[in-house]
Structure formats: C-alpha cells, structure tokens
C-alpha cells in the first residue's frame, strides 16, 4: 500500500481527536448530571428565557 504514513496520520488523527472529544463530553455530562436533578434532564422541555 502506497502512502501508508499519510493514511495512518489522516485516519488515526481524526479518530483520535473525535474519540478524545467524545470521552470528554461524556465525562463532562456525567459530572453535570450528578449535580443537576434528574427532572431537569428531560431533553425536550424548554422554559422560556431571554438572554437579557
């Protein structure tokens, strides 16, 4: 296979970055979920709020 180094760099870097981001999101979400009561985690409700 030609250009193997480029291929590994491109695919590897992309998967790595996205995986790290995903894991960090999950951790952040877990930390926040622990602090916010479960009834607020209903994703579809949206209280009206202006940015002021």
């Amino acid at each position: 296979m030609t250009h193997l180094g480029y291929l590994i760099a491109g695919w590897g870097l992309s998967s790595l970055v996205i995986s790290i981001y995903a894991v960090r999101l999950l951790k952040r979400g877990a930390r926040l979920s622990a602090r916010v009561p479960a009834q607020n985690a209903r994703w579809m409700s949206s209280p009206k709020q202006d940015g002021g």
Partner: protein
Amino acid sequence: MTVPITTASKGSKILGITSIIGFAVLILLAFFVTDPDIRFHPETGEEFGQFDAVRLLYLHVPMAIVTYLAFVICAIASAGYLIKRTFWWDSMAHAAGEVGTLTCALVLITGSIWGRPVWNTWWEWGDVRLMSTLILFLLFLGYLALRGAFVSPQRAARPAAIVALIAVLDIPLINRSVEWWENRTLHQKSTLSELKIEDLTLFTLMLGILVSVLVMSWLILHRFRVAWLEHMEFEQGVKSAIEERRHIDNKEQ
C-alpha cells in the same frame, strides 16, 4: 431505582453503537475492499493517479460535508433562538457550532495530509474551498471565543446568535471573493471529476457520509445535553444564591 448519572439515553446509545459499527465497516471498505486510484496514460502507458492516497478521501469528503451541515444547523438554531428565545435553541446552536469547529479543523488537517502526496503541497493558496474552509474555521473560533468570554451563558446567547448568523451569511461572499481572487481551483478539476467513480467507490463514499452524519449527530446530541445541563446548573446556582441572600436577610431582621 437508581438513575444512571450520564447524558446518554437509550437513543443516543443505539446511535453511538451504530456509529462505531459503521466506522469499522467504513475502514474495512476504505482500506481493503476498494481499489487504489491507478490510471494508465493512454499513449505512454505510464501509471499515474492518487494511488492509495485516495483512501483519505473517504474520510475527508464526508467530514467536509458534515462540517458544513453542522454550521448550517448552528445558523438555523441561532435564528431559532432569536425568534423563540429559549435555552433549547441556544444550546443547539452552541453544540452544533462547537462540533462543527472540531470537524472543520479535522477537514483542514486531513485535506492537508492528502494534498501533500497528491498535489505535492501541504497548502495551496489558490484553492477556493481550502481558503474558504480556513476562514470559516477562524470565524467559528471567534464565535466560540465570544461565548467563552461571557460569565453567564444567558448573556452570551444573543450576541453569539448574531455572530453565527452573520458568519454563515458571509460564507458565500468569502467563497465568491476567493474564487475571483485567483480564479483557479485545484479541487474539482484535477481530482474528483477525473476519479473513476465506480459503484464500490461511490458506495464507500456514501457510507462515509452516513457514518459521519451519525457521529456528528451523536456528538451534537451529547454536547447539546452538556450545554443544557450547564444552563440548568446555572439557573440552579442563581436560585440557591437568591435563597441564600434572602435567608441572610431574615437573620439580620
């Protein structure tokens, strides 16, 4: 009954698992099933083409599509926020903006890695899409910086929505201006249109787009929930701060 402490839901788990399986299949197809791009010169019979570097496109092109998709979602959600003024739209815009910026960075990097063997350069100034994408990336870095500069997420919402809308409306202008600027582009002429698009290649590319959309959806979904929880936590903090202040009052009485 214990509630698991996570932003995942049944739907997002299915989405996540599907994405991972899809990604595995994509790698299989992109690396081992599809052929490298090898063409023969009609007269001399010499070998030319992108060879195995073409396998990078199965990742690069879908991610580029997904990036633009994310920014369009961000713009729509920003408009939605300006009309409805709810957390929901603001969180969605924030999530799509952040995920889009991340994939945009990856598009630039994978594009550069692909360009090195194929165009013989890491960076090509004369290419419209390359330039526009870079400017777009910078624009959204500014967008995220603006959001980060506010103490309260609620105060950030309106300025951020305005910036996102202006940014997305500016994209066609940037694209036009860069195109007229050099009036040449390497992208479609020299590469994609000449590529022998066979059924299998096309299928792999489509699968790549599908998988990328799934991955993006998963990321946006979770980022949205994080943003939503941050709003909730902020609200909760405000509420308890109000209670606390009132409590001190009563003591002083």
